[in-house]
């Protein structure tokens, strides 16, 4: 398929269908409403089921049911709607159910605004629901990456039997860009022999559940699923890094914001300031190790986010106290400008920040 122009929200739907998603349950919310709109039209044409649930909570629990029957299922929403889904996500993690959840983040807290934001970083990377669980979390920075990582997310969800999050912001959801659908790399997936689709009286019933009343049994279960999280930390870290070895200033940014950062970096280069960038593509697991590649010329690390600095803690763990960490942020739906980032780069490079 040649390149076509798609809005990010449409691309989520198209990529999910391409990846074999057969069930979409959701409830519309700006700025992600085009996802259910697209799915309502395209999914039935692809032999799947679109259902507009009565609420976000109903939608995630329908995903739980479809996943339990072994189907590829997805839900999508925007920040306040994703908050409502947290109970379902932790249940799915506890019951080891594969599913994909897309969050087109908007300003918060509470109802917030309908403008783009990245303020669900804590919720996405620390587990927004209760209990010891983790979710793989991809942060695409373009509509093409939405296509690529939504498709990958379905495979990874099945591979680990765990919910996978796509954490984008409203800007990517609404923005139109050129995309191409490429065949993803083949991943060997284990057979789904745990689903509740009837025993045909040939085996014992499978049970899908996250309730373990005996402490020791639950502890064993926790330790079992922790092995998966350790594997994810080992094998699933994705990032883009550039120019770290001889950078005066290193920038850290994910999603849409990283594109604005790159524009500022090119402007800094014209002024003779060398910059490098670390862009986490998975915000969990976080690419801590790549910070070791920062050269000894660096004067500081600048993290740029559309929130109050939720990634700073992770950046500080990566930097391990070797360099000062600064923050440039916008909140509430305000999008940062290259000019304000350039100003901070100049201050750090010149030693005035």
């Amino acid at each position, binding site marked *: 398929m040649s390149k*076509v122009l798609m809005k990010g929200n449409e691309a989520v739907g198209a990529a999910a269908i391409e990846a074999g998603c057969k069930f979409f349950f959701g409830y519309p919310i700006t700025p992600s409403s085009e996802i259910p709109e697209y799915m309502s039209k395209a999914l039935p044409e692809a032999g799947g089921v679109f259902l507009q649930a009565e609420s976000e909570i109903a939608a995630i629990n329908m995903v739980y049911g479809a996943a339990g029957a072994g189907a590829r299922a997805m839900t999508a929403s925007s920040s306040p709607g994703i908050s409502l889904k947290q109970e379902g996500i932790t249940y799915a993690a506890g019951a080891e159910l594969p599913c994909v959840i897309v969050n087109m983040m908007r300003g918060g807290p509470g109802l917030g605004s309908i*403008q783009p934001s990245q303020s669900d970083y804590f919720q996405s990377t620390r587990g927004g629901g209760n209990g010891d669980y983790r979710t793989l979390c991809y942060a695409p920075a373009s509509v093409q990456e939405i296509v690529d990582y939504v498709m990958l997310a379905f495979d990874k969800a099945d591979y680990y039997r765990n919910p996978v999050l796509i954490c984008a912001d409203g800007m990517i959801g609404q923005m139109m860009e050129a995309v191409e659908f490429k065949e993803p790399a083949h991943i060997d997936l284990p057979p789904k022999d745990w689903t509740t689709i009837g025993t045909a009286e040939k085996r014992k019933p499978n049970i899908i559940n996250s309730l373990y009343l005996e402490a020791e049994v639950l502890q064993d279960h926790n330790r079992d699923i922790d092995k998966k999280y350790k594997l994810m930390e080992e094998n699933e870290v994705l990032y883009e890094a550039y120019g770290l070895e001889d950078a005066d200033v290193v920038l850290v940014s994910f999603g849409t914001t990283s594109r604005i950062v790159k524009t500022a970096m090119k402007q800094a280069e014209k002024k003779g300031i060398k910059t490098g960038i670390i862009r986490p593509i998975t915000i969990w697991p976080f690419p801590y190790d790549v910070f070791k590649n920062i050269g000894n010329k660096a004067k500081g690390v600048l993290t740029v986010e559309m929130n109050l600095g939720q990634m700073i803690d992770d950046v500080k763990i990566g930097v391990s106290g070797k360099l000062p960490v600064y923050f440039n942020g916008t909140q509430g739906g305000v999008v940062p400008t290259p000019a304000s980032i350039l100003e901070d780069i100049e201050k750090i490079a010149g030693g005035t920040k």
Partner: protein
Amino acid sequence: MLDKRLVIVTGHYGSGKTEFSVNYAVKMKETHENVSIADLDIVNPYFRSREKREFFEKIGVKIFDSSIKNTAIDIPALPAQMMGVILNPNEKSVLDVGGDPVGARVLARYSGQIKNTEYDMFYVINGNRPETSNVEGSLKYLRMIESTSGLKVTGLINNTHMLKDTKVEDVEFGHELTKKVSWETDIPIRYEAVIKKTAEKINNEEILEKLFPINLYMREEWMS
């Protein structure tokens, strides 16, 4: 230019209506004293012409949008002045309508009055959008928009592009597509909208005849 006083810009969702409307209003200001642009987009929450209010005020183009003064609200509220924009005989007016039939529905509220005035309704085609990449798809949306709005399309705009990477081939592909739509509907092609950088490289006579070079006012510098 031969366009009527009132120009209504419609099209499939994401076809580039707003970018065309903004460029068109700027162009009209060169030859008309009173120019206004009305943002009737009740579908999109982002990238609406109302975000360019300051720019329009600076160049002396009047802009009308939601009666609720906030760019970040998606409530379908339109101000009473909209009727003035539509009916004022001394005003060169551009209506930037939301995408698809759902966006065009807002026009139905004014169609009775619009029918009694001189108007052009443009249908913007972007052949690089999957749903309007062929004649059938383009015709489907055109017919649905006409039936929802109660108004007839009078001109086709070829706006086939690949954003800042638009190549001459994209424009030519869109031209052929728009020509076929024109043949099927007997609606003439009015403009071939092309970003300036690519417009310079076009040598197809048919396209040059109706070439409408545009700037990308709605894309930030960091966007592709």
